[in-house]
């Protein structure tokens, strides 16, 4: 400080730190390789702006073909019941999936979970595995186990939800602020105490977001439920396209959009509640 005796001793020649972070040669090479890969890929398969501009008329044609949406009351009633059916399965599947994701994500969170780093890796691998095995295989398995229908549909959604929520919950847990956790640990709290005392309050908004996204995904997903003969709004949409009933399809899309918007709104409200 200039006015104090300290000032005189502060070496005037403290060097400016280098502008760029110092990377190890390996890290540098990897970064460059990744960049080159991205650029090469983008160069080969990205659309040119001209192509995009040309798309205007096709867009108009497509929209024309899809409008006006079919608002026939009988059709709307059918759609309504399909949505009820979908929601029932989606809510149950997402709720069970979210509940199961919580402990699994805790196990999978490095440095936080109770199983150590190896356990965390294995849990992460398990979550990835649930995600990698295609829906069709789960469908086969569940059809063989519990038969065709809503129960198998629920289980397929459970698996999908764990594959998704498990990863994002674990990430939120790993990224949550360390200080309050340290504080509880210093008082003698165990890992469970840290989880419930410090981590959960902190990650709640992120969990709400992930969970409601999982629910939304379950409602939107068209493939999964059909595979096990469970039907739902997604099937109706697929059927509309298969029969080239574009006006029916646009009605269904609009309805789903309204639902998604509603859930977006609910997510926002809930997140502000737990903020």
């Amino acid at each position, binding site marked *: 400080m200039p006015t104090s005796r300290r000032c005189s001793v502060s070496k005037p020649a403290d060097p400016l*730190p280098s*502008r760029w972070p110092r990377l190890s040669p390996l890290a540098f090479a990897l970064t460059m390789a990744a960049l080159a890969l991205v650029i090469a890929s983008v160069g080969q398969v990205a659309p040119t702006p001209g192509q995009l501009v040309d798309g205007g008329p096709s867009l108009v044609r497509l929209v024309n073909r899809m409008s006006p949406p079919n608002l026939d009351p009988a059709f709307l009633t059918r759609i309504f019941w399909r949505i009820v059916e979908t929601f029932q399965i989606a809510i149950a599947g997402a709720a069970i999936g979210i509940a199961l994701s919580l402990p699994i994500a805790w196990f999978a969170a490095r440095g936080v979970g109770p199983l150590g780093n190896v356990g965390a890796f294995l849990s992460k691998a398990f979550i990835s595995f649930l995600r990698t095995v295609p829906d069709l295989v789960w469908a086969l398995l569940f059809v063989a186990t519990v038969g065709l229908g809503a129960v198998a549909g629920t289980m397929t959604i459970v698996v999908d939800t764990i594959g998704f929520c498990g990863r994002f919950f674990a990430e939120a847990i790993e990224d949550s602020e360390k200080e309050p956790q340290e504080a509880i640990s210093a008082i003698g709290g165990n890992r469970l105490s840290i989880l419930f005392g410090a981590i959960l309050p902190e990650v709640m908004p992120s969990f709400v977001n992930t969970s409601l996204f999982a629910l939304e995904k379950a409602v939107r997903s068209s493939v999964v439920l059909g595979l096990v003969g469970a039907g739902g709004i997604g099937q109706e949409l697929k059927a509309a396209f298969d029969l080239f009933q574009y006006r029916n399809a646009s009605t269904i899309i609009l309805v789903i959009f309204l639902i998604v918007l509603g859930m977006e709104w609910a997510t926002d409200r809930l997140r502000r509640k737990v903020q």
Partner: protein
Amino acid sequence: MLDLSPARPSTARGALSDPIVTTGGLRKSYDRKTEILKGIDLTIRAGERVALIGSNGCGKSTLLRCLIGLHEVSAGEVTALGETFTGLPAGAQKARLRRKTGFVFQKHCLVRRRSVLSNVIHGMMSEPGSWRAFSQMTAPETWRRAALEALAWVNLADKAAARADALSGGQQQRVAIARALVRQPALLIADEPAASLDPVSGQDVMALFTRLCAEHGITLLFTSHDMSHARSFADRIVALKAGRVLFDKPADTTTDADIEEVFRVEAR
């Protein structure tokens, strides 16, 4: 940026200069139940150094934050650096106001994943070409040098390349001070700048403030729980109690009894 060449004439003590901050009947409540500030009338003149004292939770930080529109004022009017507002200042007003203000927070609020130097360079964010202040990588050479100089003032030039969260509590506090000083603010607001500094560093920082205020006509408003700091580094002491100004006196006429009164707890 502090331009160190022709020091502006410091305002003579005692001579009444122009008001730089004025509050009229400022009230603030966070919720309907309790009002934290119950009508504060305060005038701070250019070049003055004012200490704000009061017990924990009396509303010092709240008042400081209201002055630059970080909190909405519930009632009353604030005029700071020529900008008059009620509630929150409008966007453009806020920008003009803050461009000339330096603010040191009680919780130092550094960006912990960035280097110390980057954090100080953030202090340039209201200069033209502000995007270059995003981090030390993008900053022009002059800013980088100015930031390093500001760090040298608070004796942290050797930590410039360290990550902000690898510093001790007191060191972080000093980085926040350097961030507020790197560019020459007309008004410097500092919320307990010396709270976690060791005795000598605390003295040094307060002396640095005094020197900068004298040389560049900076107006200083700071809070402190260290009465010796308030008494020796401020021209004036403003004491808050129960949401009101208890007294507002020149520092040299403030008595021990006055101070005791500030912190005395009344029967509720």
